[in-house]
C-alpha cells in the first residue's frame, strides 16, 4: 500500500510544480503571442514579487494584504517594463525586443541587489514563510506539504479564471485576435496598446503568485532566483506550443510531470517492496535506473526540449508559430 501513497504524493508533487511552471509559462506565451517577444525579464518579475512579499511579511502584515501588495507591485513593474522597454520598440526587429528583455532583467536584478546593500541586508535573505503555506497536511495515511496543495489549487483556479477571461470577455478575445493578426485586430477597433499592457499585467500577476510559492518552497531568496524558473517556463511553453495559452498550461504540467518522473524513477528499484516485480526486473531497475541519475534531472529536461524541437517543433498544440520567429 505504501507504494500507492508514494505515487499519490508524486502526482501531487507533479501537479504543484506543474502549476508553478504553467503560471509562469502563460505569461510568457501571452506576451509572445502578441509581440513575438520572449520576455526573459519575466522571471525577474517573479523575483521582485518574492522580495515585495518578504518585506511585507517582515512588516507583519496579514497574508491577504501581503498578497494584494505583492500582486499590485509586480503588476506595476510589468506595466512599467512594457511602457519603458518594449512599447518604444514596436516595429523594431524581434531581436531588439529580446535584447531589451535581457537588459531589463539585469536592471531588475542589480537594482534589487543595490537596494538590499543600501539597506544593509545580505544578498540572500531567508524567506519568512507564512504558517498557512508551511508544514504538512495529513489526509489519512498520506502526508503532503501544505505548499504543494496550495500551489496546485492556486494554479488550477487562476488558470481556469484565465481561460474564462480569454474566451468570455471582449478584452480576452481581443488578446487572442491580436496574437493572431495585429493589423486585423486594429481594424476591429481594438486598442493594441491596451491589449499588450493587459497581457503584461496579467502575466505579472500570475508570475507574482508563482514567485510567492517558489520563495516559500526555496526558503530563501536572492536577486537571481528568476533565472531558472523563466528557463523552465520557456521550455514548458515550447513543449505546449509557443504562443498558445492552452499550450503553455499543458506544457507547464507536462514539464512538472516529467521532472517528478525524472526525480522519482531513478532509484525506484531500491524502494519497490519485494515480490511486486520479479527479482530480474528489480535487478534491471537497480542497474539502469540508479538513484544518482536523478541528479541529472535538468540535463534530461533539456534533452527533452531538444528532442521536442527536433521532432515536434510546434509543440503539443502549436501550429506554425515558429515560422514567424
Amino acid at each position, binding site marked *: 500500500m505504501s507504494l500507492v501513497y508514494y505515487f499519490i504524493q508524486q502526482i501531487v508533487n507533479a501537479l504543484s510544480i506543474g502549476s508553478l511552471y504553467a503560471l509562469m509559462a502563460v505569461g510568457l506565451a501571452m506576451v509572445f503571442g502578441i509581440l513575438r517577444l520572449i520576455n526573459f525579464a519575466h522571471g525577474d518579475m517573479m523575483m521582485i514579487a518574492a522580495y515585495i512579499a518578504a518585506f511585507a511579511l517582515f512588516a507583519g502584515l496579514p497574508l491577504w494584504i501581503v498578497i494584494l501588495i505583492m500582486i499590485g507591485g509586480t503588476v506595476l513593474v510589468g506595466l512599467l517594463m512594457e511602457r519603458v522597454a518594449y512599447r518604444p520598440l514596436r516595429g523594431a526587429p524581434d531581436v531588439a525586443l529580446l535584447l531589451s528583455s535581457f537588459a531589463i532583467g539585469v536592471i531588475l536584478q542589480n537594482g534589487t541587489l543595490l537596494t538590499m546593500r543600501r539597506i544593509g541586508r545580505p544578498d540572500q535573505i531567508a524567506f519568512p514563510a507564512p504558517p498557512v503555506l508551511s508544514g504538512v497536511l495529513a489526509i489519512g495515511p498520506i502526508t503532503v506539504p501544505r505548499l504543494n496543495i496550495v500551489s496546485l489549487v492556486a494554479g488550477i483556479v487562476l488558470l481556469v479564471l484565465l481561460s474564462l477571461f480569454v474566451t468570455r470577455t471582449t478584452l480576452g*478575445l481581443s488578446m487572442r485576435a491580436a496574437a493572431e493578426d495585429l493589423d486585423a*485586430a486594429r481594424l*476591429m*477597433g*481594438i*486598442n493594441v496598446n491596451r491589449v499588450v499592457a493587459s497581457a503584461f499585467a496579467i502575466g505579472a500577476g500570475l508570475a507574482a503568485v508563482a514567485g510567492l510559492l517558489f520563495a516559500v518552497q526555496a526558503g530563501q531568496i536572492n536577486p537571481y532566483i528568476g533565472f531558472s524558473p523563466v528557463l523552465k517556463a520557456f521550455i514548458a511553453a515550447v513543449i505546449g506550443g509557443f504562443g498558445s495559452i492552452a499550450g503553455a498550461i499543458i506544457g507547464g504540467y507536462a514539464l512538472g510531470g516529467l521532472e517528478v518522473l525524472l526525480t522519482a524513477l531513478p532509484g525506484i528499484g531500491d524502494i519497490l517492496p519485494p515480490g511486486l516485480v520479479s527479482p530480474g526486473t528489480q535487478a534491471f531497475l537497480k542497474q539502469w535506473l540508479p538513484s544518482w541519475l536523478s541528479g541529472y534531472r535538468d540535463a534530461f529536461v533539456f534533452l527533452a526540449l531538444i528532442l521536442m524541437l527536433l521532432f515536434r517543433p510546434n509543440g503539443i498544440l502549436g501550429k506554425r508559430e515558429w515560422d514567424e520567429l
Partner: protein
Amino acid sequence: MLELDNIHVSYGSISALNGVSFRVNEGELVALIGSNGAGKSTTLKTISGLLRPRQGRIIYQNRDISREPTDRIVGLGLSHCPEGRRIFGRLTVRENLLLGAARRKGMIPDDLDRIYTLFPRLKERLAQAGGTLSGGEQQMPAIGRALMSRPALLLLDEPSLGLAPLMVEHIFGVIRELKRTGTTMLLVEQNVHHALDVADRAYVMETGRITLDGPAGELKRNPQIEQSYLGR
C-alpha cells in the same frame, strides 16, 4: 464625408502614393479601380490609419484623421474590411463577428441577426473556427465583422478576389443591399465590370496617382477603360 487631400505615402524609400486626392460623399458608393500595385490597398490602409501619410490630409466627417490611431478611426464609424479577408483563424466565426463590435456595447444580438440575414450560411458555421472555412466562405464573416461596428463608412478591399462566380454574385448582392440601406462605401475591386455596375462614381489609379474619375456609367463607356480593364 471623406476627403483625401494630396496624400503621399511611402514604404521606406519607395513611394507608393504620390499626391492622391478624392472624395466620397454621404450615401455614395465610390469605386477605386486600377491595376495591381497602383496603390489602391495602400490608399485604404492609409485612410484607416494602418499606414501614416508622409504628407497630406484625410478629412472624415469634418476632422483630420491622418494622425489618429486605427482604433480611434474605427470608433468614429469608419470600418475597413481588408484585402485577403484576414479572418482570425483560431477564433470561431461567432467570436470573429463579436470582435467587430469590440468597441461598443449593447444591441449586439440585433446586429448579429442583421449579419445572418445578409449571410444566412454563417448561422450554420458560428461555432466553427474561422480557419476551417474555405477562402470564399471567409469573405462572409470578414464583411460581417466589418459591419458589426455599424460603420457610417465602409472600406471594402477586393471583396470578390479569388471567389467562385456564384459567390461573387452573392457578395455584390450584399454590397447592393448595403447601398440600398444607406451605407456609404469605398470599394477597391479588380473586377472592374462588377465594380462599375454597382458604383455611383469611380476613380482610376495608376502608379500612386488618380488618373481618371467620373460617374461609373460614364467610365464604363470610356474607351481607355474598356481597353485596359474591361477587355473589350
